[in-house]
Each structure stands twice: as structure tokens, then as C-alpha cells.
């Protein structure tokens, strides 16, 4: 990431570099795994909400899921902090799963 680990006054450059590396790793995991969960869960909710036959909803949601995933990946790297990327994606995943579970 473009230097999101700032504000360390007394920290050495190597410590900063390893913190930045951890930050990237955390975001990468959030993007790949958290993003996948969020995209899947939201797509499930879309499938459940879709008017018309069940097959239509599942097809439409599956078609959309890759755009959702791409958006989730981008957000994981755009979020202010890695922690908020995780929190946001898991919250979206939980909301989507809950909606999909409650609706049918």
C-alpha cells in the first residue's frame, strides 16, 4: 500500500517496512477470503430477493457475483486501515447471509 503506516515517530525504517508488509498481507487475505465471502453472501441475498422463478435469481446472482467480488477486492485495498477492510467485508457477508437466510 502507498505508505499507510505513517505516524511512527521513533520507529526504524525496517520496522515500518515489516509493518507495511503485514498490512498488505492482511488486506490481501481480507480481499481474497473476506471478499469472496461477502460477494457470495450478497449474491445469495440477491438470489433470494430476485422476483420471478428461483432459477432466474440464482443465475442473475451468480452472474453478478464476480462484479461484487471485484468491488470487494478493491475496497479491501482502498479502506483506511486493514482492520476496517476486514470489519466491513465481514459485516457485509454477515448481513447478506442473514438476509438470504430470512427471506425464503
Amino acid at each position, binding site marked *: *500500500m*502507498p505508505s499507510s503506516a505513517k505516524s511512527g515517530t521513533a520507529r526504524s525504517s525496517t520496522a515500518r517496512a515489516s509493518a507495511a508488509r503485514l498490512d498488505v498481507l492482511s488486506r490481501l487475505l481480507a480481499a481474497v477470503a473476506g471478499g469472496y465471502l461477502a*460477494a*457470495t453472501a450478497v*449474491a*445469495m441475498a440477491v*438470489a*433470494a430477493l430476485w422476483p*420471478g*422463478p*428461483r*432459477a*432466474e*435469481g*440464482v*443465475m*442473475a*446472482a*451468480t*452472474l453478478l*457475483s*464476480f*462484479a461484487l*467480488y*471485484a468491488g470487494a*477486492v*478493491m475496497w479491501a*485495498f*482502498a479502506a483506511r486501515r486493514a482492520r476496517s477492510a476486514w470489519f466491513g467485508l465481514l459485516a457485509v457477508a454477515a448481513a447478506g447471509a442473514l438476509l*438470504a437466510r430470512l427471506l*425464503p
Partner: protein
Amino acid sequence: MRSHFRACMAWLHTWTGVVFGWLLYLVFLTGTAGYFDTEIDQWMNPGLTIARPGQAQAEYAELALAQLQQRSPEAERWFIVLPVDRNDPLPRIIWRPQAPAAGGSAFLDPATGQPLTLSHSYGGQLLYRMHYELHYMPSAVGVWIVGVAAMGMLVALITGVVVHKKIFTDFFTFRPGKGPRSWLDAHNVLSVTCLPFFLMITYSGLIFFAFTYMPLIAAASYGDTPAGRQAFRAEVFEGGDTYPRAGRPAPLAALGPMLAQAAARWGDGMVNGIDIRQPGDAGARVMLWQGERTPLRRGEIMVFDGVSGELLETRPAAPAGAKAAHDLLLGLHEGLFASLPLRLLYFASGLAGAAMIATGLVLWTTKRRQRAERGGESPHFGLRLVERLNVGTVIGLPIGIACYFWANRLLPETLAGRPAWEAHMLFLGWGGMLLHAALRPRQRLWAEQAAVAALAYLLLPALNAMTSGRHLFASLAQGDAVFAGFDLAMLFIGAAWAAAAFKFRRAASGAQAGAERRAGSRRTAPASN
């Protein structure tokens, strides 16, 4: 906030590009070759007799039926492909026995109706399949790896658009001979002009295996049980029909009258597929697929009772709703409907995609090298690695593909596993160029490899003339579009590499002179340092 977002997206664009670039380059290049897969098949199997489209459908159907009966009686599904256009040069049979036995497929010799063993070459199909299932690994593994890379491509495309400030101006901006600036301009022009194609081809590529990559969405609605999966398949892909086994044997109705009904509705020789469910069972169904190619992939389907031979329904050509969107994406990706001019446009767009990826990869290195040289530091290991991998793949892979064609004409007929050896030659050729890239001086790499690529492609028509006897002028005189087209394409590609080789050589000697001048000025005026 805006600039922070854009900086993040630039970072993401750069790194998805570098991580997936080489693999995506392979996918784009082999997939682009796939737009001429059956033509490459024919060039690489010059001894093969090609079926005349739309001819002798009833005879082929009978011969195919006999083969299927012999190979897989009591199957769950038989499928017969009948040639109607360039997409299927040979009749083909596919069978799926009842679970758990594994199915299979075979081509039929249009002259004799007997099954063909393709011991000569896998032709264009090898390149085409490589673009989605790779090579030297199980298909399922390759599909997942390519899927992950395609997802990376999608992210790189969207972030690439976000990073752009002036997408319209970049249409018309190219500043050659200015180092990284020129590479950036080239990358932008290529990306912007074909952006709709890249978005379409990447997104639709993911959709081919959408239910493999995203299985949980369907499972949430249908349940993760065999019955649920079957209900899902039936509702989504079979228009709600299932084809249950009655369990009582009954002879399959004759196909001839069904084909006659199809000919009355669609015209002669327009049946592209005969889809037979539960043959030999009282519940059998026969479905005839119209060989009409549209971006929606499919024409009408006539559904017959497989025992009485009665026409039950005719399914409309265009599906509705989300299924139509799905089919449209796949249809646009495959381009089976494309006539020659459109096919050439597909080909050019695919090459532009490969070039976009290549320029992006080069841009990554030129920027970093310039920074390193300005800072007076020695370039780090990652930079040197990427620089060399770039040449070895961007030019090495096309050379590998040329090796595949050379091997096709040079490997002995008696070699055991000949088709597999053709593929080995592709990877040996590519590996050889990677080795070359690892060992030679950096400044000369691009020019040397481009020269090799130029020779490898320019000499192919000569090799073809010597080994098959069907030289370019004979092919042109006979109106043999496939052979003439292949030779001309090789000459064109070879000429492009030759032009590139000259350009690279000039650029390298220019850089050399510049470096010497700088070194010289340092020697004469040490005080200025």
C-alpha cells in the same frame, strides 16, 4: 480522499498486473489462436479429410448411432455433432454413461464414418484448451488457476480505468522514443481502444465456470444434495425438463424422420447437434439443435419422444432473462457466430490484449530501472528477474508456439505419443528462450529474441512447402483459404517481429551510446559527481 483512493487503485493495478501478467499473457495468446482453432487443426493435420458442412446428415447420424451403441449402450446421454460450418470440421460423438462410469468422445472420419484416432496432432485444440485449462495438470486445477488469474485481470481492468484521469485524450496520445513515457502511452492506447472487448472477454471467461467458482449461491437456493444439484441443472439449463429413466427398455425411434422434420423447418443440413437422453429406455428423448449461430449461442431445439418419434415441442432460440444474459456472455466470448471479418477483429483484439499485458509488464520494469539509475543504486533482484522473465515470456512464448508448428512438420510420424511431443516442443522452445533471457546481456535480449521470433515465423511457410508440398502459391491458386491463410498469417506475424527486432536493436544501441557518453563525461569531469 480522491487522491488516496486513486493511489490505492494504482497500487492494486500494478501488483495484480505483475503477479498475473505472464499467465494472462499466455491465456490471451493461446485463446486468440483459438479463434482460428479448426483452421489450425486442418493445417496441422494435412492428411485429414474435412466434412463438407451440411452434407449427408442422415448418413452421419446412422453411423454415429452405431458407434455410440457399441461404445456405451444404456447411456444416460449421447450427443452427435454434425458439421454445419467451420466450427465443426468433423462429425463427433460424445457419450455419458450412467454414473459412476466416465464418459468420452471421438471424432468420425467423414469419408468412412469410422472413429478417428488423432495420432498426428491435436492442432489448434491444444492451444484453445490451454487458454482455460493450461497444460501438464488436471483440467480442474488449470481451470481454477486461470479463474484466479481472470479475477485478477478483472480487478486490473477496473482499477486501470479508475486510475485514468483522461481516458479520452489517451485515445490519441502516443509519444514514441521517450522511454517509460512511450511504454505508458502504448499501454494506455492499447487498453483504452479495446477496453469494451477486454471487459467482455474477461467477465465472460469467468462466467464459463461461474457455477464452479461460485458454487455456494446455487447451493443456498437448491441445497447441496444430488437431488438439489439435479433440480438446479434442470431448471437453469434444461428449461425445467428432467429426463428420468423409465427403467423399461424400448428401442430408440429412427432418427431419419426427425431429421426430415428439422429440414422442413430449418432447411437442409442445418442440424448441428443430436442430443439423445436415456437411449434404449422407454423414457428416451431426442433433441435436435439448430445449427444457427448467433451471439445468443443457440438456435431452436426440437424435442422428440425417443420411442414414438413424435415431436413434443420446439424450444425457442432465444432464452429469456438472466439465462439470456448468461448465454450472450458465453456467445460473445466464443465468437462461433463470427464471419471472417469479425473473426479477424476478434483475433486483432485478442492480440491487442496480449500486447496490453506485455506493455504493462515492461512499464513496471522501465519505471523501476529509471528510478534505480537516477538514484545511482544497483537494480534489485526483483527488477532484474522481472526484466528477464518479461523477454523470455513476451517473445519466448510466441517462439514456443512457433516451435509447436515446426514440431508438427518435423517430428517423425512413427514417434510414440507424437501429439504430446508437439506440445513438449512448445514448452521446450519457451524454456529455451527463458534460458536465453537469463544468460545474455540485458540490452541485447529484446532484439535477439525478436530476431529469433521473426525467423521462426517467416520460415514456416517455406517449411510447410517442403513438408506438405502445399506451398503458398499453390494454395492461393487453388483457393485453399485455410492453407493460404495460415501461411500469410505466419508471414505477417514474422514481419511484425522483424520490424520489432530492428526497433529494439536501434533502441539498444542508442541506450548503449547514451551510457557510454555518460560514463565518458564522468571520466573526464570527476569533479561534477
